[in-house]
């Protein structure tokens, strides 16, 4: 096997592995701060008389906020790695230590914005007698910042792998921005489904959506005491985290294939992904039909 092909294979595998782990961590980070869809429910709760102890980390949309974490961490890492290289440090050590520093700075920024968002939003709920609980902020905050650190670190490393080993023509900070927005979109669209409805509405039947009349009527009590946002990622990592990871990891992994197999040029990964989606669609369709035939219609849909 030619060394170039071996390097590319290692790069593709590494990129896929990093993307998979980043997917789990990012989804947990958003769950720890009630981001995206759950954020609306947490926001609505006090208006219908539920005093909450959730961390209300609203930072202007999950995709852009992840874009900022990734772009900021990667920019700092790139610039710092040049400084380290000037000091005589080896290239890979320089990139790794610079990435850690970049992710640490980014986690501090995320913590500041999270504090601002939580306190400001709780203050805006004063008319509904919602107090500002310090424990609801200070318990999940370091956890959320830690997860942000890991997400930023992984996306930075992923950008360097894409730029260096896989030969992407864009600069690492721009790749990081794209990766961050992509991962945030996937976690928002895929992972949060398993938080918004499953975790917040455990006292209601799950499976056919949440009626508008129940919006904001979320669970307040946890396994012990009042539920706070630390409980949530523990629950969501089982399914929401892994499904996000699968989606993002597969995307990055298959995209790398377009460099290994070039039968259709840049379209290779798109053709492969379309094929996998078709297989999944057929399998899930068959599974649904089998389930309905075996166990009958869903409750409440007998007449349909």
């Amino acid at each position: 096997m030619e060394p170039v092909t071996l390097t590319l294979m290692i790069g593709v595998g590494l990129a896929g592995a990093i993307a998979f782990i980043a997917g789990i961590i990012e989804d947990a980070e958003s769950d720890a701060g009630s981001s995206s869809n759950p954020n609306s429910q947490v926001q609505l709760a006090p208006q219908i008389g539920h005093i909450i102890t959730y961390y209300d980390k609203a930072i202007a949309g999950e995709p852009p906020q992840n874009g900022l974490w990734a772009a900021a961490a990667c920019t700092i890492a790139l610039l710092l790695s040049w400084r380290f290289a000037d000091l005589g440090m080896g290239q890979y050590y320089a990139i790794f230590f610079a990435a850690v520093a970049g992710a640490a700075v980014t986690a501090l920024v995320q913590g500041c914005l999270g504090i601002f968002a939580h306190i400001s939003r709780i203050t805006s709920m004063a008319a509904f007698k919602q107090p500002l609980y310090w424990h609801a902020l200070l318990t999940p905050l370091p956890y959320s910042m830690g997860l942000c650190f890991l997400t930023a670190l992984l996306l930075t490393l992923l950008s360097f792998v894409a730029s260096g080993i896989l030969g992407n023509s864009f600069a690492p900070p721009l790749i990081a921005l794209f990766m961050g927005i992509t991962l945030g979109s996937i976690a928002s669209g895929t992972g949060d489904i398993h938080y918004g409805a499953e975790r917040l509405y455990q006292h209601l039947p799950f499976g056919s959506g949440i009626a508008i009349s129940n919006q904001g009527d979320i669970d307040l009590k946890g396994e012990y005491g009042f539920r706070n946002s630390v409980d949530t990622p523990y629950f969501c990592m089982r399914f929401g985290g892994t499904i996000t990871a699968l989606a993002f990891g597969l995307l990055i992994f298959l995209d790398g294939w377009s460099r290994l197999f070039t039968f259709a040029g840049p379209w290779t990964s798109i053709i492969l992904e379309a094929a996998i989606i078709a297989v999944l669609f057929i399998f899930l369709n068959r599974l649904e039909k089998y389930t309905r035939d075996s166990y009958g219609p869903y409750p409440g849909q007998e007449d349909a």
Partner: protein
Amino acid sequence: MTTQPSEPPVEKKEIPNYKLYLLAVITGIISYFIAALNPNLSFISIILIWPAFIAAAGCVEFLCRYGLGTGTSSIGYWGTACGATVVFASQFIETTAYSPFLEIAIATLLGYAAGFCANKIIKMKIPRIELNSAIIAGSTGIIALIILEIFAGGAGMAGTTVYYIYPVMYIGIALTILHPYNGNLGAGENQTRTLMLAMCEAALLTSLFGFIGILLPNTPFIPALGMLIISIIGFVIFVSIWWKRVKEEVYDVVWAGYPEGVDH
């Protein structure tokens, strides 16, 4: 059950956004010439671009009251796309007509055109979207222009290393003008507290840019360090002002405990 809201506090009259923008343009142009003529005084330039963040955040607040999203797809990204892109694109155009006046004017006009199209073609029917879109685009143009000028150390946009920071500049500016309203969302949101948060976040972002400036190879060290120090001082001052306002408006501040009237 719906909780009856208590009596809302009497709110002072809001500051019109065009007044905030006029202030931002004046301070922005002064800021540009300070940075261009004497890079070592760029810490003053940083103070003078904070009004641009406030003007843009004020417009986001105004527009989002009409139902525009405050999250992923929202006016903040739209406005930044118009404003910052004009400044970034101008870096690639070699012309003697290059001037801050021209760039701010083009950014503002582009923002106006985007708002005009939104109302006339897409039929969004949002009052004064043209004006507010123009202000957001102009403000983000001012911010990008001055920060790039400080990083260039008064020597123009020589060198390509500054291009590496475009992604973080773009998304950072967009989030900072968008988040003050997004972070304050709720029945008790008001312009004063939203703009105070905009000041805090503006100082936070310029601190980040100051740190990045220190690391940029071609950027003079002293201006970048000044930017970082002044931004941190501003951040501390603004956060203390914002926190004072929060304590006046919040229902209660408690460490822990069960809410009153809830069985446990």
